[in-house]
């Protein structure tokens, strides 16, 4: 282990990692540079834009404001871990279908924030979606299509659950 670096055990997208990190390394840096998970984007470093949002033990957090060592023993889910091209997560499918994105740079963070929101409120009103996504910024869309995408995703998730119950 390099001098001054700290050991870190962490589970990312279901895979356990045991690497050492610089104590100053941010979770976003660790995910992007050490694990090559570049779907998590960094747009500001000041916890404003939310492009770096991931799930940390199930909660949506901004990974640019968490030190990697703070995630010791935690489970992290990034955009790469929520679905695959063959089996998109309902939120991914809805953003794709509903044109809930343009340049796509904020999209991973917005989707992770949306997943966090839908876990807490499976049937959010438009006002709740607007409030729930307050921590992320999108410069391209004007937000309306994103709100529609989240509403659509909520519907898809409910349908999935109905199907699961039906089985």
């Amino acid at each position, binding site marked *: 282990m390099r001098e001054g670096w700290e050991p870190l055990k962490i589970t990312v997208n279901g895979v356990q990692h045991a690497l050492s990190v610089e104590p*100053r390394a941010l979770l976003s840096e660790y995910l*992007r*540079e050490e694990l*090559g*998970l*570049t*779907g*998590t*984007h960094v*747009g*500001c*470093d*000041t*916890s*404003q*834009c939310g*492009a770096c949002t991931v799930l940390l033990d199930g909660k949506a957090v901004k990974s640019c404001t968490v030190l990697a060592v703070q995630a010791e023993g935690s489970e992290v889910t*990034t*955009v*790469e871990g929520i*679905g*695959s*091209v063959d089996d*998109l997560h309902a939120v*991914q*499918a809805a*953003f*794709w*279908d*509903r*044109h809930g*994105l*343009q*340049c*796509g*740079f*904020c*999209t*991973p963070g917005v*989707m992770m924030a949306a997943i966090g929101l839908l876990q807490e409120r499976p049937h959010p009103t438009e*006002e709740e*979606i*607007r*409030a729930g*996504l*307050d921590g*992320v*910024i*999108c*410069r*391209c*869309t*004007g*937000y*309306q*299509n*994103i709100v529609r995408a989240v509403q659509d995703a909520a519907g898809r998730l409910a349908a999935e659950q109905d199907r699961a119950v039906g089985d």
Partner: protein
Amino acid sequence: MTAVGESVRRKEAENKVSGAAKYNDDFTVPGMLYATLRTSTKAHATLRFVDKRKALQMPGVRAVLLGEDAKVLCGEVLADRPPLAKGRVRYSGEPIALVVADSEAQAMAAAAAIDIAYDPLPVVNSPLEAAKPGAPVIHPELGSYTKEQSPIYPQAGTNICDSAHIRKGDMARGWQEAEVVVEGDFTLPQIDHAAMETRSARVEILPDGRVQVFSSTQAPFEVQKLLSKYFAVPQGQVVVSTPLVGGAFGGKTSVNLEVLAYMASKAVGGRLVRLANTREQDIATSPVGVGMQARMKLGATRDGRLAAAEMAYWLDTGAYTDSTPRVARAIAANCTGPYRVPNVHCDVNVVYTNHVFTTAYRGFGHINLTFTVERIMEKLAHALGVDPLELRKRNVLEPGDTTPTTVRLTRSNLGDTAKCLERTAELIGWTPGSHAERIGPHTVRAHGIAAFWKTSSSPPDAISGALITMNKDGTMNLATGTVEFGAGTKTTAAQILAERMGMDVDQIHIHSDVNTKVDPEHWKTVASMSTYMSGRAVLEAAEDVIRQLKSVAATVLRCPPADLEVGGGRVYLRDDPQQYVAFKDIAHGYKYQEGDSIGGQVMGRGSFIMRHLTLLDQKTGQGRPGPAWTVGATAVEVDLDTRDFTYRIRRAATVMDAGKVINPRTARGVVMGGMNMGLGYGSRESMLYSDQGEVLNGQLRLYKLMRYGEQPEYLVDFVETPQVDSPYGARPIGEHGNLAAPAALANALSVAAGVPIDELPATPEHIWRATKGVHR
């Protein structure tokens, strides 16, 4: 129709939602070095010394470059910008030193260790101040700079680095006819593009001399040409790659990080070096959008016919010109807005200040001219006692009229402004007279409307190309040089090709990145011109492919090529579609039963250059600035709290003449996004400077953007008057949601607050000042 007019999903969206999409800074290569900038803390000062000795001793440091290490002066129009400040700094945030190290942290530590001594100079903080005689001169060398691209008319010994003019009609007669005259002063601040992806560049210089550039640019071909010119590298040896770009809005047209990354790589033996902006640098070091002070006088007859207009603009280009001289000409060319004014006198001055330098911003000056014109139209409506909507409709330009630069308008090149105004008014629920309605004890509701027009203002020789190669299975690969930064340019190109071929859009394979070595040039992905320029090239390439397919099919089907049609992946006899040959059987040549073959791989080329455009005459402004206009209108509904002047933008409607909507969902999305940016500018966004010219809000915590929940309900619709020379009649729409939103908001707030709002952003504090007559 099979593809055009359908809301097909974006080609690259699947990768974007899965996190697999790669942006420029998503590529890390082992052994890559990191560069960082040390920037000025003073807005105007001479550099007494810059001492790099301590920095060079720091761990991991490979090189430290200063102003004297850079021989070139940069600038698209006027070469006035040193890549690193030399002797003098002209804005706070200006790069002074470039440090290359093994890690970013090491580079940053060393940059902080550079010792800099400033001797402050007087700071010029506004364009009007800068234009005054006796103002401190920011570029004493102005007379000696190389003009890179005409026209540019610097006035040596002053801060006025360029000016553009319109002289149309007879002003004396115009003022004589004018029975009612209104005047006003208008101010807009500089604005940051704030694309969510900050700018970055990587450069590697290979032993054979090839310069590999990786950049988040809107203009990879411009990067190629300028690096070739600045550093005397043959153009073909400069290869620029641009992956998906995370938002651009004009801010990524300017070539600067690429120049610095090249210098950094050169200093370390050609090794791969990465230079990426922090958000703070993206706001305060890289260029922003232009600010302005303007004065306008408008005269009309008593029955509301416009007779004469005189306007003067002082554009805050900041410390360097970049593309702002071209913005000045765009403003001049369209200075009347979409209205018929027979007599026009317009001066647009480009003025240096000690602010961050500026480049293209979504709308290319049209937010500025629209704000000015639409605010004064409102004053005129008030003075005449006419409904503002009615006044606009009465004066819209029609086919047969001429523009300020005397281009004759046709239905094809203009579209239908009146229809857009009517539909916008309908969507917002316009009531004639435009009065504030009291809807609560402390709340008033008001509407504002504003119309816009815009043409491309691109160089007369701007080019675009398309290459098609066919796969064995009959599908097509399409290569274009447009950058995909969110507007859907690649998907649009694929839709245009699919439509012409009668194929499913899934059968068109288009790559979302650009590489100058293999992709045909597209001038720059700007001015909302991709559909027109790239689309024309795609259609020409499609014709080339069709000709080749028919030629081989004619032999196979034993008929003249003229009897054949293409569609559904087949070439078939027009009179008997059952007789056909499939694309897949001729895409790579046709093989007879005996094995002998004819044809070869089908590959098509399309090449487009702008037609009939001319530079504007420097004295009169006569000339043709673009192939056609997009017209439209935006209306806003606000609820204003009369106690503290906070307000909520409830609804916003935009209707524009899109000619033909290629992809309805993408189009609505792009227009809503534009409106959101425009309302952000109108309500909160601004580059803020201290008395000493220091940027006060150089991070997203302080630079306010529209956030979730603050957006109004967006209502978007289109009128479709075909632009005959454009693919399927489509007009540019990418910037246009942005253009009139600030003006419409200011008009609504002026009605609601009962005072003219002639300066943006209209923060509650600003409205309060306006109502109390308190000046800063």
